[in-house]
């Protein structure tokens, strides 16, 4: 966990250095403050230019008062502290002021040309203006505490000949939050005169090499006041520096630590960072924000349908995604069928999705890595947040357990959606039940100044029951221990131990068939990584990891006294996965950067197990077993291993343009045995064995990234090609549960996926948003199967996840700092569907005949959602704050197909029908709060 963060931040350091070297600085307030007008120029002729972002309106007025020689009078309680996002280009002063005030229901009145009273539009009259001015003159009104930059002075050594003879000195230290004492990650330290800078790592540490002398170091970080350090350096020096927070909403506190131009600067291709703020602003089903649904707005990330668990990346299956939360893997991320996920957005810090180039420290999956990092609790004060929605509510609380030493954060979500079922007339629904909860807790220990320990625990439970007949239950439990040690400014280490358990069951209630069928997977993993920064341009990471998979026996148990079901237990394959990896990232020239990794992974299937040998050249069936070999406990049965090279290269075409290319080879030793488009909770996780080979994926990708207007606009285009081997395919209508001879139902297949993704993003301003289009294809071929067992005669056929066209458009209109309007449009090609080509009668029933799998497609999916947010969390710095979100999901009531099936029509003909579970517009309201 730590090393992932370290790598990200280190990479950010490089990005920043590159930016500095090429004289490209992120847009900042200090850079955009227009120069003071010539004293001879009157205010009528003054011109305002610049890009004001991230400062409050009060700050803006303060700056203008100073620069333009005007005097503002206003009621400090009325002029908000919200941040403004305004661009000016050759605007006259008064229109510029009007522009700055609009949206806040504020207006101004001139007592003289340079004496300006600002007041609510409706109350602005001469009498009011005079009263306000009088309050100021009497000193009863003063400027509010402003979020302007502050200054400190630091001095190391003194001027001497020897001191001046050195080429550079190291200015090291750590930036931390003044209130919480948490490290400030990703903060930049810039010496503009030298065009030199650095950024803090995951522990807030920095190291800046400077020539001897006096320097002005500007420290900036999103959410913090700018700080200017007047530095005199004549020897190496170290300082821990506190940064003061801006007044800001909780959303902005937990925004992903990422540079505005990371898309261009990052060497890795196909890496997406999603901010929690963005997720929360998206219109959502029943008003509940969800991480997975947020991911699905990105190009190349799709789902097979409403209510499907997990997500599909570039045509891959959901089991090809490694999903981590603080380093602990999830094997089922679904809550409530899949309409929600297990991730609680209240306590998420960072979300990174690797869908193209995947660094060597990640492995075991062939499609993508979703790395979710949780926040640490506040080390200083107790805070909390929560929300109340139609389907579930959530609450999180954080604070110090030992001030400045130990902090904790805990969050819980619980559903109460049964009330919705109770109001339905249909008996089966009224007597059904759907419940879930999840609980997450994280403890953070500052062992020493250079050692931290974190302990994360998670538990979730889902329960569905259909009437009084049958239902599903599943649980996720995991715990992760992280221990990070910083040996020096260049050398650090991260250790992680994870224990996880996933269990699921299908139960039938009542009668002689009453039973409970359960399975599950326990995993134990250890990972040790070390990080070494050779110099500003070169970094290394190395490590080892091992995971033991202990699938629980498939169990069938009688349920109730009247059941005649015979209990049985079927042992499943177990095994050990291990890997060693080395990753390096560096700069070849001023324009050419690379990231290279090598992972050597292996897997050992272990006993106890009876392994069946089947006759060659005939279909694999129970009747074709020719030998049985018994293996003892922990005895090695089958071993697989191989190299996994990873390589990315970036050619920096200009300050805001780059081309990237990447190649990955990945191996996957655990497979979700699921023959459906969307996985169900009781689908088996099966490790590779004698009959099931590991999956192998060669991934090639190429992309062009171009930002405009100082990263305000971000455009990218990527193409990729995936070549897969060892994909698990299935014979026609297989039996996958409680099957001792599972391999008789499986086929080995190859796959290929290719596509192009195009994305345009506007990152800030009154209008912001993203347009993403992806064209992707995904195919499977059972080329090695016997002629009678091949699917579609051994020809390539579309995989269940082949959805060629995907469009996502998200637009946000920030009406004013409190009110925001968001629109989200989603379109994707209908998923493949096996069409019936004929019908026939047998045994007194009429059934359909299907010959070519996935030959047809269900109707295309599209949907428009809107939401309106009234967010007052930024209205004050402390205390209870809240926001409302009103949303309408599926605004134009599109009846998107949940299922497509054949049925007799009134003419007794087979007819295709579509069932839409959400065939109407769904309004919702949710209430969120922080304190």
């Amino acid at each position, binding site marked *: 966990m730590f090393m992932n963060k370290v790598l990200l931040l280190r990479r950010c350091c490089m990005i920043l250095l590159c930016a500095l070297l090429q004289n490209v600085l992120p847009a900042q307030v200090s850079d955009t403050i227009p120069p003071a007008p010539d004293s001879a120029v009157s205010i009528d002729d003054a011109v305002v230019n610049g890009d004001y972002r991230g400062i409050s309106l009060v700050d803006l007025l303060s700056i203008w008062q100073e620069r333009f020689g005007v005097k503002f009078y206003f009621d400090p309680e009325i002029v908000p502290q919200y941040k403004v996002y305004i661009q000016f280009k050759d605007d006259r002063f008064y229109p510029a002021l009007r522009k700055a005030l609009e949206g806040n229901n504020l207006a101004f009145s001139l007592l003289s040309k340079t004496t300006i009273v600002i007041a609510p539009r409706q109350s602005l009259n001469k009498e009011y203006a005079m009263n306000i001015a009088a309050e100021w003159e009497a000193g009863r009104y003063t400027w509010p505490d402003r979020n302007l930059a502050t200054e400190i002075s630091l001095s190391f050594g003194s001027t001497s000949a020897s001191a001046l003879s050195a080429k550079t000195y190291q200015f090291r230290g750590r930036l931390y939050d003044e209130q919480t004492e948490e490290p400030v990650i990703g903060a930049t330290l810039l010496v503009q005169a030298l065009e030199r800078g650095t950024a803090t790592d995951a522990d807030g540490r920095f190291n800046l090499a400077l020539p001897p002398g006096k320097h002005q170091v500007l420290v900036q970080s999103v959410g913090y006041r700018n700080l200017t350090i007047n530095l005199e350096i004549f020897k190496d020096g170290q300082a821990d520096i506190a940064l003061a927070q801006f007044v800001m909403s909780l959303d902005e506190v937990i925004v992903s630590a990422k540079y505005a131009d990371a898309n261009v600067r990052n060497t890795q291709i196909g890496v997406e960072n999603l901010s929690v703020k963005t997720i929360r602003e998206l219109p959502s089903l029943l008003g509940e924000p969800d991480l997975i649904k947020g991911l699905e707005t990105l190009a190349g990330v799709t789902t097979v349908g409403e209510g499907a668990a997990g997500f599909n990346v570039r045509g891959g299956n959901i089991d090809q995604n490694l999903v981590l939360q603080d380093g602990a893997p999830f094997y089922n991320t679904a809550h409530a069928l899949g309409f929600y996920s297990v991730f609680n957005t209240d306590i998420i810090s960072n979300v990174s999705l690797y869908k193209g180039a995947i660094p060597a420290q990640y492995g075991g999956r062939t499609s993508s890595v979703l790395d979710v990092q949780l926040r640490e609790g506040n080390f200083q004060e107790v805070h909390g947040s929560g929300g109340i929605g139609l389907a579930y509510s959530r609450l999180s609380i954080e604070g110090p357990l030992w001030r400045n030493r130990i902090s904790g954060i805990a969050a819980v979500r619980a559903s109460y959606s049964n009330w919705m079922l109770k109001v339905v007339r249909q008996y089966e629904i009224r007597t059904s039940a759907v419940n879930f909860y999840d609980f997450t807790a994280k403890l953070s220990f500052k062992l020493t100044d250079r050692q931290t320990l974190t302990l994360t625990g998670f538990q979730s439970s889902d329960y569905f029951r259909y009437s009084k007949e049958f239902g599903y239950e599943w649980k996720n439990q995991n715990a992760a221990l992280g221990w990070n040690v910083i040996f020096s400014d260049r050398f650090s280490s991260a250790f992680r131990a994870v224990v996880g358990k996933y269990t699921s069951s299908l139960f039938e209630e009542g009668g002689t068939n009453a039973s409970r069928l359960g399975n599950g997977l326990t995993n134990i993993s250890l990972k040790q990584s070390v990080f070494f920064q050779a110099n500003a341009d070169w970094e290394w990471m190395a490590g080892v990891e091992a995971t033991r998979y202990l699938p629980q026996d498939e169990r069938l148990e009688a349920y109730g006294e009247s059941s005649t079901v015979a209990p049985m237990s079927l042992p499943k394959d177990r095994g050990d996965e291990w890997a060693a990896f080395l990753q390096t990232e560096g700069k070849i020239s001023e324009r050419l950067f690379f990231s290279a990794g090598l992972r050597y992974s292996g897997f050992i299937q272990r006993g106890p197990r009876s392994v069946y040998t089947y006759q060659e050249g005939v279909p694999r069936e129970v009747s074709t077993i020719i030998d049985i070999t018994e293996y003892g406990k922990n005895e090695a049965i089958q071993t697989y291993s191989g190299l996994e090279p990873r390589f990315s290269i970036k050619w920096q075409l200009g300050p805001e343009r780059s081309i990237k290319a990447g190649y990955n080879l990945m191996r996957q030793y655990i497979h979700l045995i699921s023959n459906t488009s969307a996985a169900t909770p009781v689908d088996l996780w099966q490790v590779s064995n004698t009959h099931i080979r590991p999956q192998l994926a060669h991934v090639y990708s190429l992309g062009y990234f171009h930002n405009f207007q100082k990263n305000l606009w971000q455009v990218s285009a990527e193409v990729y090609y995936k070549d897969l081997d060892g994909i698990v395919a299935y014979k026609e209508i297989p039996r996958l549960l409680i099957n001792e001879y599972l391999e008789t139902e499986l086929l080995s297949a190859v796959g290929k996926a290719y596509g192009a993704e195009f994305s345009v993003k506007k990152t800030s301003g009154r209008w912001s948003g993203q347009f993403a289009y992806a064209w992707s294809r995904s195919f499977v071929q059972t080329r090695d199967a016997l002629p009678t067992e091949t699917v579609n005669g051994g020809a390539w056929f579309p995989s269940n996840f082949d959805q060629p066209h995907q469009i996502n458009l998200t637009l946000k209109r920030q009406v004013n700092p409190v009110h925001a309007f968001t629109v989200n449009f989603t379109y994707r090609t209908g998923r493949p569907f096996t069409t019936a080509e004929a019908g026939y009668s047998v045994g007194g029933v009429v059934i359909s005949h299907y010959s070519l799998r996935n030959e047809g497609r269900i109707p295309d999916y599209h949907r428009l959602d809107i939401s309106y947010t009234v967010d007052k969390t930024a209205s004050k710095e402390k205390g209870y704050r809240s926001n409302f979100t009103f949303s309408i999901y599926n605004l134009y009531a599109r009846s998107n197909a949940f299922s497509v099936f054949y049925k007799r029509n009134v003419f007794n003909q087979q007819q295709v029908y579509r*069932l839409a579970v959400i065939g109407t517009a769904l309004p919702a309201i949710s209430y969120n709060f922080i304190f």
Partner: protein
Amino acid sequence: MHTSKFSIIAILLASGIFLHSCVDALEFNPTEGEELLVVDGKLTTSGEDQFLRLSRTAAVGRSDNFPPVTGASVTLRDELGNIVGYEETQPGRYQLDGSAMQGVSGRTYILRIETDGKVYESKPETMPQNIEADNSFFVIVNQKFVNIHTSVQIPADLTLGPFLKWRIDNVWQVNEIYCGPFDPTDVCYVKQTFSNQLLPILDGSLLARGETARPFVAVKEADKTFGEVVYFNLYMETLTPDAFKYWNKVSLLLTQSGSIFDAPPGAIRGNVTNLNDPNELVLGYFYTAPEDTTHVKVLASDFLPYTINPYCGVAGFPPFPLPTECCTCTRLPNSSLVKPDYWE
């Protein structure tokens, strides 16, 4: 099967949560495939005449007139070398004289079909040992439905199975009312077959040996046919593992809802192959199965009073308008004045 259950949950619970779901027809251009041969037949131990249907598939969108295969030469032979022929009694319907060859447990049979110059044969099927049903019984659910169950003792010495399949029909009684001095009040027995039912099958492998299983077999809405007496007739067949595998796939196809939680459907290859072209896909199955019959009697008095209205009304209160069948009950389809021999 579990995926179908998940589909049911997904559809119904989602419908419940979101309070709105809808079904509408889609325009779809079906793939036009060739008309495939469909074999639908069996051999039982009942000693009654056996029937075999030969037909071809009909393209989606067309009505259910599956083209019959006429003029075929059909024979059945056993391991002893006995060969008997089928006679085509209706287009595509071939009949085997029950006295000519009766199924015997433990004996292996092969069906041979010659049509259009091609020769087809079924894989050898060995008639399994018969599993007897102890009895059958009914359960009335909410006075609205009648669930039919069978009691079967799972043999203690059976290692795999039993694999069971049921065919069900019912016969209900109609008492004519007084329609005039010259019209006698007859009693009819009307036979109904269960159509559009899910295929009742059971894999007993997961059931405790030596215990009695009581699987649910069928359900019928409690309608006017329960106004007097109804008999349910359950014909339980014991299948071979291969035959069960086939019918299980048919059953899975029938329960599919086409949702994201359903496995992709596929062609169900039967046990009949073209001897000249083994790659030709032949649909359907010819199986051998011992058959055991049980009857369940349901009386109107088994329901709460006034919940069931007899077809011809209660005494003195005929329905309006009066169905003509209440004066001449033989007008009802499949009705007979002959009381079945099991009728008590």
